[in-house]
């Protein structure tokens, strides 16, 4: 009798070998990207990439042949087709002219739209480019001082907890270590891969795409990190709608934010500057969650400045003025959905 196959074990072995090969530089790091770039040369352009090119293609397709094809592999087939073409030629021409006129009008409308979209993109600073750039930026360093309020908020929770974006998995590992059933979502392949390499359950996916695949009410909690600090206003609203829908009754929602006035240097500065959105205030989350039936139950803020030490009157006044000047720093906000009525 043959041993039963351990497919999970095999997958883990394959993942480990892939990570080892990547780490050892067994193949040029740019090879994968090069393979993608070669295929992209032959893929049709996406509408958002080059609307002019797409419109040109549509225009080309709109030109329908007035001549009816009469070639045939069958004996006598060409004669029959030529005869039919002669009989129906007027009707074919009548239809073609109408279709070409319709298609021409649609292409014309597309061109007008394209001009408007391009001027809109110029006016808004090419948000699509900023998004693309954001996907290449490094994951900001994990700030451990925000872990404790997150773990406290999730204590005793029932159901699965989504941690997104989980980066290299530091916060996720801490949450799991506290006994919570949690998994992560991370859009950056390398970070997701590193987190998986630590034995964590992490999906390499875009958060919104992942949430769309989750059933309504399925999650016991969600911890939102990273994405909340770089999404444009419209994207934030969509994200809030989705995550609220996927959480069950009595669920806990935690937002971990660098804060709207957090001082940033190094890689975090690049992240802050080259992303379409910016961190919002805790009051904004409260407003958004309350409108969707959630209640903000705690906000743990860190100052956005180095406080002046001591408890003298002068240091107190200085710290109050610094707080006025710099506003709130990083924070952890906890909200809860109401439990069903008994």
């Amino acid at each position, binding site marked *: 009798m*043959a*041993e039963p*196959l351990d*497919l999970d074990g*095999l*997958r883990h*072995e*394959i*993942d480990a*070998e*892939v990570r080892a*090969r*990547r780490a050892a530089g*067994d*193949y040029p790091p740019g*090879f*994968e990207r090069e*393979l*993608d770039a*070669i*295929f992209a*040369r*032959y*893929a*049709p*352009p*996406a509408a958002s990439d080059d609307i002019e090119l797409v419109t040109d293609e549509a225009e080309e*397709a709109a030109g329908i042949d007035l001549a009816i094809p009469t070639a045939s592999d069958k004996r006598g087939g060409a004669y029959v087709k030529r005869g039919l073409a002669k009989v129906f030629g007027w009707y074919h021409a009548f239809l073609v002219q109408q279709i070409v006129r319709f298609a021409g009008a649609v292409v014309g409308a597309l061109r007008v739209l394209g001009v408007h979209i391009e001027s809109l993109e110029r006016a808004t600073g090419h948000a699509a480019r900023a998004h693309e750039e954001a996907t290449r930026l490094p994951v900001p360093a994990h700030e451990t001082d925000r872990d404790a309020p997150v773990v406290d908020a999730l204590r005793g929770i029932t159901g699965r907890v989504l941690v997104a974006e989980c980066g290299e998995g530091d916060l996720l590992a801490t949450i799991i270590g506290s006994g919570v059933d949690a998994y992560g979502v991370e859009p950056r*392949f390398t970070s997701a891969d590193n987190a998986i390499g630590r034995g964590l359950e992490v999906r*390499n996916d875009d958060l919104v795409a992942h949430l769309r695949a989750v059933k309504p009410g399925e999650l016991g909690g969600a911890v939102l990190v990273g994405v909340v600090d770089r999404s444009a206003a419209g994207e934030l609203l969509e994200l809030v709608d989705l995550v609220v829908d996927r959480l069950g009754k009595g669920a806990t929602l935690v937002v971990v934010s660098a804060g709207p006035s957090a001082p940033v240097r190094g890689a975090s500065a690049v992240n802050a500057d080259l992303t379409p959105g910016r961190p919002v205030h805790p009051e904004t989350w409260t407003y958004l969650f309350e409108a969707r039936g959630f209640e903000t139950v705690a906000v743990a803020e860190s100052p956005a400045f180095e406080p002046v030490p001591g408890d003298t009157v002068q240091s107190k006044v200085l710290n109050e003025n610094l707080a006025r000047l710099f506003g709130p720093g990083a924070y952890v906000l906890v909200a809860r959905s109401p439990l069903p009525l008994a």
Partner: protein
Amino acid sequence: MIAVHQFVPTLAPRDAVSTHYLRVRATLRAAGYSSDIYAMDSRGEVAKEARPFQTFRGGRSGESTWLCYQSSIGSPVADFVAARPEPLMVDYHNITPAAFFERWEPGMAVYLRAGRRQLRELAPRAQLAFADSSYNAAELDALGFEHTGVVPILFDRDDLHTEIDAATRDRLARERIEGSSTWLFVGQVAPHKAQHDIVKALAMYRRLFDPNARLRLVGFPLSKAYVEAVEHYVADLGLTGAVELAGSVPDAVLGAYFATADVYVCLSEHEGFCVPLLEAMHHGLPVVAYATGAVPETLGAGGLLLARKDPLTVATAVARVMDPALHAALVRAGHARLDDFSLARNEAALLDAVASVAGRS
């Protein structure tokens, strides 16, 4: 007498779903139902198996007549059954999301969207809707069908390419280099089947593990633009000669492709069931597949499912599968999995589903 007539957009030879239609008819007839197939388009060797759908005038007097719509891309057949007075059941094999075709074949995307819209419109009319996988059944639920169930595709191992075209087998065997592996994928050449990802993985595999490895892609070229892109890709990667796009082939030729391959690799982005996985298992090929759509449900523990399909992961997985002991174990696992799709069991599921609304014949 109870009649259950199928209405299908297309009945075509060498097509898994068309084979299912014919087997549904045979199963219903054997169980005592009256059953015919009405199609918009029937072609090739099976052309005579269907009648034009417009010729349907209703059942014979004294007969309780049901219509079974075999859902597909947008088709006048759906509008026809929607307007008929007879009670309706729907059999769903999945409609590929139009997004896969938008860039490549905008015309096809229009038909796919129309198919989904028509399916939604049929929901209030249908007394029953069944699908060949839970994945597809979940889509029916989402579209608003009230009574849904799963009836796996009627698949008979005995039908599978028992004949092997000797000339093709000899040619493929001659092209083989001793000690190197041959990958196989069978399916329409189309964006959602992601043949370009298999080519990409092969490029990585040849670089890291086996410079003489080959890939054979068999299937009808559904998207001309996509096929051309894959051909250019193969050429640019220096894989001309190592990758063969064989097109649609007769059963005996397909048997030769299965007989001369070492591993079946499926990296589709979307599958509603994936019959070729069963064929690969039947032919004793270990399966390496990307876990998407209904693939995990169909493959079960019969092959190696991958959560990611980056070329390094796929190449590493195939290299592991080429280990003789693992290769043999996966072949055994595939054969064991096939037992779950026995024809008798699936025919019984179909008859139970039909009887639950139409009554037993």
